[in-house]
C-alpha cells in the first residue's frame, strides 16, 4: 500500500507546514523591519523588567531609605531619591503600573470600540447615528483634558476592585478607556461599513447567512489586522496618558512608583541637585513608548501594505 503511505506523508507535511511558514514569516519580519525588531526586543526587555521586578529590584520601591539623594552606585544602580527610595527599583515597578494600565485600557477599549462598531455597522440607522454623535462629542475634547476631568469627577465614585488594580489605577483605566474607545470606534466603524459593501459579504448573504454570522464570521476576521495596528498605536498613547495624569498628580496613589508621578511633585525641587531622579523614569518611559511606536510602524507595514509609509 504505497499510495496510502504517500497520502499519509502528504498529510503529515500538511500538518508540519504551517509552523514552518510562520517561522519564515517571523524571519522575514526580522530581516525587513530592523527598526521594528529593535522595538520588539525593547518591548520584551521592558515586559521582562516589569514582570520580574520583585526579583530584579534591589530594595522595596516604597521603602524609605537612610541614604538620600545618592548618585548612581553599585548599591543603587539609578541612585536614590529624596526619601532614600531606590530609583532603579522604582523604575522597574513603574513599568508594571504603565504596562498594567496600558494593556487593560487597550484591551477594553479595543473590544468595546470594535463591538460598538460592529453593532453600529450592523444595525445602522438610528443606533449608528446616535453612537456617531456621542462619539463626535467625546472626541471633541482634547484627550488629556478630558481624561483629567473624568479622573477628577469620578474619583470618589468608583469601588475598589481588589488587589490586581488599586482604586486609583482602576480609575485611570476607566478614564483612559472613555477617551480612547470613541477613537477606536470611529476607525473600526469606517472599516465595518467598507467591508459590508464588499462582494464576499454579498455572497455570504446570498447563500443565506444571518447578519450576526456575517458580522462575526466574515467581517470580524477581516478587521483583525486593522485592530492589531490600532491597538499597537493606542498602547503607547494610553501609557503616555497614564503617565501624564500621574505627572499632574491625579493618577496613581501618592508614593506608588510610576514613571509619570516620579517626575513630579516634591521630586522636582531636587532635579538639579540629583538629575538621576529626573532622567531615569523619563528615559524608561520614552524608550517604552518609542519601542511600541517602532514595533507598531513595522506591524502596519507588514499587515497592511496599503498603509505603508503613512504617519
Amino acid at each position, binding site marked *: 500500500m504505497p499510495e496510502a503511505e504517500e497520502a499519509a506523508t502528504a498529510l503529515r507535511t500538511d500538518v508540519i507546514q504551517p509552523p514552518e511558514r510562520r517561522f519564515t514569516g517571523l524571519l522575514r519580519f526580522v530581516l525587513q523591519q530592523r*527598526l521594528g525588531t529593535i522595538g520588539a526586543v525593547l518591548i520584551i526587555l521592558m515586559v521582562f523588567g516589569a514582570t520580574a521586578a520583585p526579583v530584579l529590584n534591589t530594595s522595596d520601591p516604597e521603602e524609605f531609605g537612610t541614604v538620600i539623594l545618592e548618585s548612581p552606585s553599585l548599591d543603587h544602580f539609578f541612585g536614590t531619591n529624596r526619601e532614600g527610595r531606590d530609583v532603579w527599583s522604582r523604575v522597574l515597578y513603574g513599568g508594571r503600573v504603565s504596562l498594567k494600565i496600558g494593556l487593560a485600557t487597550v484591551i477594553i477599549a479595543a473590544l468595546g470600540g470594535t463591538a460598538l462598531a460592529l453593532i453600529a455597522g450592523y444595525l445602522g440607522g438610528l443606533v449608528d447615528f446616535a453612537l456617531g*454623535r*456621542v462619539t*463626535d*462629542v*467625546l472626541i*471633541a*475634547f*482634547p*484627550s*488629556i*483634558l*478630558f481624561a*483629567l*476631568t*473624568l479622573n*477628577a*469627577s*469620578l474619583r*470618589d*465614585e468608583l469601588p475598589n476592585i481588589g488587589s490586581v488594580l488599586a482604586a486609583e489605577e482602576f480609575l485611570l483605566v476607566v478614564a483612559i478607556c472613555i477617551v480612547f474607545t470613541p477613537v477606536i470606534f470611529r476607525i473600526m466603524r469606517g472599516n465595518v461599513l467598507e467591508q459590508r459593501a464588499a462582494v464576499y459579504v454579498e455572497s455570504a448573504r446570498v447563500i443565506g447567512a444571518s447578519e450576526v454570522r456575517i458580522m462575526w464570521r466574515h467581517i470580524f476576521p477581516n478587521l483583525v489586522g486593522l485592530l492589531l495596528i490600532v491597538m499597537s498605536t493606542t498602547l*503607547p498613547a494610553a501609557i*503616555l496618558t497614564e*503617565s*501624564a495624569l500621574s*505627572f*499632574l*498628580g*491625579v493618577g496613581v496613589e501618592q508614593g506608588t512608583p510610576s514613571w*509619570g508621578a516620579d*517626575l*513630579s511633585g516634591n521630586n*522636582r525641587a531636587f*532635579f*538639579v541637585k540629583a*538629575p538621576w531622579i*529626573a532622567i531615569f523614569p*523619563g528615559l524608561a*518611559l*520614552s524608550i517604552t*513608548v*518609542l519601542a511600541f*511606536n*517602532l514595533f507598531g*510602524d513595522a506591524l502596519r507595514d507588514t499587515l497592511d501594505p496599503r498603509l505603508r*509609509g*503613512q*504617519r
Partner: protein
Amino acid sequence: MQVYIARRLLAVPFMLLGMSLLLFWLLFLRPGNAALTGFGLVSPDQNASAIASLEEEFGLDRPFFVQYSDWAWNALRGDLGISLKNRRSVTAEIRSRLPVTAELGVLTVLLTALIGIPVGIISAIRPGTVLDGFLRVVTISGISVPNFWVGTLVITLPAIWWGWTPLWQYVRIEDDLIANLKIVIWPALTLAIASAAYIARIVRSSMLETLYSDFVRTARAKGLREQVVIIRHVFRSSMIAVVTVIGIQLGAILGGSVIAEQIFGVPGLGLLVFDSVVSIDYTMVLGAIMVFALMFTLINLLVDVIYTFVDPRIRY
C-alpha cells in the same frame, strides 16, 4: 461648499450642547455638600443649616436639569457663573487667561511648521540615505518622548550644565514683549517637538507618494529647476496632509498646555484647569474646559474649510 460649511456650523451648537451636558453631568455627580467640603467651604462637622445655606447660595440643592438649564442660559449670555473657590466670576478669569494660552498655541503651531516641514522635505528628497534614516529615527523618537519630560529637561539640564537658572517668572505680553517671548518660547518648543516630528513624518510620506507621479515628471521634463519642482509641485500637493495634521495636533497642543503651563508657570487656561481640578472648583473646570472644547471644535471646522482652498479637488 457653502452648504457644507453651513451644515457644519449648524452642528456646532448641538456639539456644545452635548459636551456641556456631559461635563455638567460628570462634575455634578457629586452631591452638593461633598462639592462644598471638597475645599473647605464647609467642614464635615459644621451644622446642617450652614451647609444648606451654602448649597442654596450656589444652587446645588436644585434638580440636575434645573441647574443645567440655568447654567446654560447664563452661559449663552456670556456668564459662566462664579468660582466655588473664591466666588470670582468664571468668565472674567477665563478672559484674562485666554490670550496667554492663545499666544502659546500660536507660537507652538509656528514652531511646529518651521521645524517639521523642512525636516520632512529634507527626508523626502533623499529617501534611503543615511540622513533620511537618521531623521526618521529622530522623528519617531520625537513623537515618543513625553512633553512633560522634555519640559523637565529643558528646565533641568541647562541648570546643571551651564548653571543657567532663569526665574521662569511669567511676564505678560502687554508689559514687555521680548521678556514675554523669552519665557513663552520654552513651553512652546516643548510642545512643538512632538507635533513637529509628527508633521515631518507626514510630509515625508506624502511627498514620497507624489514624487513619482506623472505631473512631477512633466514638471521636470519641461525643464523646471529641481527646487521649483519640489517646492511648487511636490510640496504643495502634500500641504493637505500638513493641514490635516496640524488640525489633529491642535488637540494635543491644547491639552499639552495644561502640562507645559504647569511646568513653566505660565498663567494660562491650562494652568487654570489644572488648579481648578486640584481644588475641585467645579464651576471653573466646567467653564474652562468648555472654552477649550469650543476652540478645538471651531479650529477643526476651520481646518476642514481650509482643505477646500488648499486642495481644489475636494468639493463638499
